[in-house]
């Protein structure tokens, strides 16, 4: 039995999601290979070769994978699936976009967003925005799985260097053309991997007021997150959204500020180690999940907090 992981990366560096997926893979099989698909991304392969538990790195480096479009990447992975029992990717927008396509090509199910591996064919995953956990038995001959990063530790660097095998499949796909990517420039740690997250909701009232959260985040070396309401209202970009349909985070410390605590938001942050809520409504649902709560006006409390941390 062996695993192939589709690596998430930005052509220069491997994304931490990939390292969490490697940890999950090690629970499934002794042989874990990682597939790096992209253009001019040798550095990603080199990073992964040093990770403990990686058997070999397969590198498909070609202009045709420059934008990691789902269609050619899925075909490539499908071409190599024959050698593996498990095909894994992180349950990020990257993995979610590509893996179901691969599963359908193989005529097998996908098990999405796995948070625990019980045995070779039994997996646990959240459903209904985390209101329930489903245990699934998948007996397909090949198993396509996406892994929730927050549920598995980060794989570490090892002492050996795995082999790097070059794959030269070129896949011609003309029906989708990449136009552009607008990536949010981050001066702060990335939301998905930060140790501390400061999230704001509709209570912040406007984009300008989010600067207050930036000051707080600065004191805590935190990433900034948001509720859907704050994103929909245009206070912050879409990739700040935490929740059922946004990012799932599990930092050491999570601040929910001016967020009511709708179940869809809770789904994305309830596995944080410590949760702090600041809300003027003492009946807000968020207080049912918070370890520590402060009831009051955030515009008074947050500046005090910033001062106290200075």
């Amino acid at each position, binding site marked *: 039995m062996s695993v192939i992981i589709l690596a998430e990366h930005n052509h220069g560096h491997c994304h931490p999601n990939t390292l969490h997926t490697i940890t999950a893979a090690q629970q499934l099989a002794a042989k874990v290979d990682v597939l790096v698909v992209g253009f001019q991304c040798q550095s990603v392969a080199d990073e992964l070769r040093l990770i403990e538990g990686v058997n070999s790195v397969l590198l498909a480096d070609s202009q045709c994978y420059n934008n990691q*479009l*789902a269609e050619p990447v*899925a075909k490539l992975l499908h071409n190599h699936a024959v050698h593996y029992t498990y095909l894994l990717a992180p349950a990020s*927008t*990257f993995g*979610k*976009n590509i893996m*179901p*396509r691969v*599963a*359908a090509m193989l005529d097998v*199910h*996908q098990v*999405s*967003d796995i948070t625990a591996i019980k045995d070779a064919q039994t997996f646990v995953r959240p*459903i*209904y925005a985390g*209101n*329930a*956990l489903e*245990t*699934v*038995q*998948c*007996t*397909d001959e090949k198993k396509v799985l996406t892994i929730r990063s927050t549920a598995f530790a980060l794989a570490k660097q090892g002492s050996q260097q795995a082999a790097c095998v070059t794959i030269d499949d070129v896949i011609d796909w003309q*029906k*989708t*053309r*990449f*136009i*552009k*990517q*607008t990536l*949010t420039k981050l001066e702060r740690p990335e939301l998905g991997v930060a140790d501390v997250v400061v999230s704001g909701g509709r209570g912040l009232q406007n984009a300008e007021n989010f600067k207050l959260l930036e000051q707080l985040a600065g004191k*805590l070396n935190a990433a900034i997150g948001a509720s859907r309401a704050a*994103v*929909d209202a245009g206070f912050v970009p*879409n*990739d700040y959204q935490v929740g059922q*349909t946004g*990012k799932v985070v599990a930092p050491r*410390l999570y601040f929910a500020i001016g967020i009511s605590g709708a*179940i*869809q938001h809770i789904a994305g942050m*309830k596995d944080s*180690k*410590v*949760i*702090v809520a600041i809300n003027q409504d*003492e009946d807000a649902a968020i*207080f*049912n*999940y*918070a370890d*520590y*709560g402060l009831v009051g006006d955030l515009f008074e*409390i947050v500046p005090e*907090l910033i001062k*106290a941390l200075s």
Partner: protein
Amino acid sequence: MKVLVAVKRVIDPYVRVRVAEDGSGVITKNAKMAMNPFDEIALEQAIQLKEAGIATQIIIAAIGNDNTQETLRKGLAMGADKAIHVNTNSALQPLAVAKVLHKIVSDEQPQLILLGKQSISGDNNQTGQMLAALLDWPQATFISDLAIEADIATVCREIDGGLETLSLTLPAVMTADLRLNEPRYASLPSIMKAKNKPLSVLTLEDLKLTLKDTYKVTTVSPPVARTPGVILKDVATLIDKLKHEAKVLS
């Protein structure tokens, strides 16, 4: 251009979901049901394309039990032209749903297929991508903007790092994200009118599909609840607790 929209009937997003004590699943009996919110957005997009003179006919399809027809009537009231109900009491997995939709596509020959990015019941986020694979069509997932000119669609996708713009040659499969649009409410006259719009009912046998039974949900359990915390009196106490009790601040 014909547009096919897949709509699923789910427990209303604002209902508190409860897990059955015997671990068999989530209690749906008497729960308020709704069209999956992402599918409402997908359908709204189709209706806007029709209003813009780009789409000519909107077909909605749903797979589910008898009650699913209520969801389809709602879709017809919003503005779909005809509905297809694939009647089954089994809860199909995305692979099976994609295969059923694939059959419907062969019959109806739409140029564009819109789905929700995920069903808020199963949270799978698979069906659209699987359908695109079965058809070998281009896909655009998690879209927040769509423009169509001749046989080229330009989409904006919400990705983890920000936004991505792609152009696709139709026919294509797309899945809707939350910020694509704000779905309309059906007016009373349109609800009345929807009663006379065509709704055909098929069974899995009619579609001659053999579906796999290799995905079994063995148990459904409630998540571990967080122990309720405490309300603190001021910022100083909070800092003290974070430092000395939770030990998450140094």
